[in-house]
């Protein structure tokens, strides 16, 4: 046994004593990098490994800085966001209850707090049981899930969207500031992202495979993942399950023009009949009223908010029956407009808002490139485009009509970004290629790498 191996073993032992999850997630990162290193093309492999090492390294530095900068004399552990403190504490309380370790009566009550229902505390509790209370180690698990999910999505889009667009999308996923921030946090976002990435990858892979048994198995797995997404956050089932299913249907229908024409004709005939039914109208009104209530609650939470209605609307919570048709239209149209525009650069005054300005400009750029990417994506791979596109639409719709708080809007917009970045990157690639004398972005830098 060489001295190097011995030294490595000692180091791993010391690190495991300090943080078991550091060693375990380190193994996970090594496996991800090993998977990426199997890329046959040398140029592409070099780009991928470099980006991932940089992404992982930066995130480890940030988490290490959190540990070193936290004053542990006054606070038990540091966090980036307030919700993380709650999730970590609650999961540790659950861990202690499971192991029979006495905790405060108040903590016992809050460990089963019925007002905040999310399944994220349970896997966190399992990690604390297996590896001991790990308020910093769970940040590393978030990073691992996020990075793995990003690589999974890259592998899924790469065969259809090509190298430059895929690398661009991966770079956006790994280094866009808001996504970077969520990826190092102990919030629902990294787990939700990993689940959604798995759903897309499984759906597209099953569609590309000739075996029907595999497709049936994929449906079951996607269903399970959608249930998991719903247990994680409200709307997860709609995005993962309904969004994916509708995407598959859209892909099938839109590739068959005659079938599409028949369905459109049938819709045109059925719509007036269905929409004039009282039960259907009631459901639509109830749905819009629920969205209005969520919007009202978001506007009235602490923090910077934006309003879609007159100030009088926000004085008292409107009853479902009080919402008028015009207000419903305002909610939907205004919500979508706010989703795109907010936070408006011309209204940013605080330092934290101004710090977000560069990313907001990037956001506008991504939206500008989206139609080009959708068009090109449909030309190259209709199925992938339909699945990602419908998920994007569902994610946008769910958030747009319910948001009212700037911080929450920015956070929930991250649900749509993982689908948006691929189309935007593809759109940029195509746009640059169409410029006079243009070359696909990275065409020179990626010379030698395959398409």
């Amino acid at each position, binding site marked *: *046994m060489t001295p190097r191996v011995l030294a490595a073993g000692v180091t791993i*032992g*010391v690190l495991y*004593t300090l943080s078991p999850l550091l060693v375990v997630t380190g193994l996970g990162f090594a496996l991800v990098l090993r998977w990426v290193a199997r890329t046959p093309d040398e140029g592409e492999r070099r780009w991928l490994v470099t980006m991932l090492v940089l992404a992982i390294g930066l995130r480890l530095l940030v988490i290490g800085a959190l540990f070193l900068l936290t004053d542990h004399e006054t606070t*038990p*552990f540091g966090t980036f966001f307030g919700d993380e403190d709650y999730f970590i504490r609650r999961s540790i*309380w659950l861990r202690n209850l499971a192991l029979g370790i*006495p*905790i*405060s009566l108040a903590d016992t009550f809050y460990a089963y707090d019925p007002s905040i229902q999310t399944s994220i505390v349970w896997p966190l509790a399992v990690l604390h049981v297996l590896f001991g209370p790990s308020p910093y180690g769970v940040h590393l698990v978030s990073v691992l899930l996020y990075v793995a999910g990003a690589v999974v999505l890259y592998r899924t889009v790469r065969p259809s969207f090509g190298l430059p667009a895929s690398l661009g999308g991966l770079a956006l996923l790994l280094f866009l500031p808001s996504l970077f921030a969520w990826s190092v946090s102990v919030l629902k976002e990294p787990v939700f992202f990993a689940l959604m990435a798995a759903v897309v990858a499984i759906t597209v892979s099953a569609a590309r495979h000739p075996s029907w048994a595999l497709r049936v198995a994929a449906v079951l797995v996607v269903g399970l993942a959608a249930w998991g997404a719903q247990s994680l956050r409200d709307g997860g089932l709609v995005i993962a399950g309904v969004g994916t299913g509708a995407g598959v249907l859209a892909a099938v229908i839109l590739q068959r023009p005659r079938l599409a024409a028949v369905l459109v004709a049938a819709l045109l005939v059925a719509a007036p009949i269905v929409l004039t039914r009282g039960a259907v109208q009631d459901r639509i009104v109830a749905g819009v009223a629920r969205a209005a209530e969520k919007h009202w609650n978001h506007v009235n939470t602490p923090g910077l908010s934006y309003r879609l209605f007159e100030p009088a609307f926000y004085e008292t919570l409107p009853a479902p029956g009080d919402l008028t048709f015009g207000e419903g239209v305002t909610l939907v149209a205004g919500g979508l407009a706010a989703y795109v525009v907010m936070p408006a650069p011309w209204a940013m005054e605080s330092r934290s808002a101004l710090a977000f300005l560069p990313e907001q400009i990037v956001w506008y750029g991504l939206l500008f490139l989206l139609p080009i990417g959708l068009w090109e994506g449909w030309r190259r791979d209709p199925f992938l485009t339909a699945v990602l596109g419908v998920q994007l639409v569902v994610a946008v719709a769910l958030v747009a009509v319910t948001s009212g708080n700037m911080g929450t809007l920015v956070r929930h917009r991250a649900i749509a970004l993982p689908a948006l970045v691929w189309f935007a990157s593809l759109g940029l690639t195509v746009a640059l290629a169409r410029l006079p004398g243009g070359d696909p972005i990275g065409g020179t830098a990626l010379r030698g790498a395959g398409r």
Partner: protein
Amino acid sequence: MIDAQGRVFGRWNLVDALLVGLLLVALPAGFAAARLFRDPPPVLHSVSPGAMSQGTGQQVEIRGEHLRPYMRVSFGPVQGPAFLYYGPGQAFVPLPALEPGTYDIVLYDYMREVARLPQSFTVTGPARPPTVRLEVTGAFAGISREMAGALTGGQLMNAADGLISETLSIGVAQPGVARVRIAEGRTVEAPMDGLFDLPATLALTCPTSVAADGYLRCATGGVVLAPDVHVVLQGPAGRLAFRVDRLVDAAPAAEPRP
């Protein structure tokens, strides 16, 4: 470095060398890392004073080692309202509302119990029964026909502040009438269309408390038991309001349940 016979530098057995390496390097390194980064466990030495009489606005001093500002102290199962940190060896805790008795002082960090002083704090006060069992007649007010059908004799229900109700008897449902107090001693009645009042006799086991005026009272959710008040009970299918018409007397002790 390692020869064909598995000897390190030709002298030491490889396995022996590994064990020595473990002892000389790995264990001290692990120990140093644990000492450097692990928080020392907090210790409780004493609570001062060790006894107090019931009352408000009092606090106790906790003395120990390695205390932290985010810790909490409870007196038995009752958590102190605050933990006023004065340093790693000292903290002050306001006294919560405690019944007379002797309590453990328990110290918690953010996730678990870390230290305990058993039977170290005594609260003295006037002797009084912790609960009283009263028989009250009245009616479950403003309930639906379905709810009325779900209520039967012998049912146990609970309310705020530990009040437990046992239904002794149920009458026949009557049209619902709301009694609204408009002034001291004056009430008006308003019919409640489509709803019913279900007369009943309940035995209420009620925790006692000493009010500001010195009287022992039986109260739930801030409502002192008296005629015309409504007590909110957790029923079989939701919350119910029981309107008290008359407090009869102390009810006999409940039969032990199997």
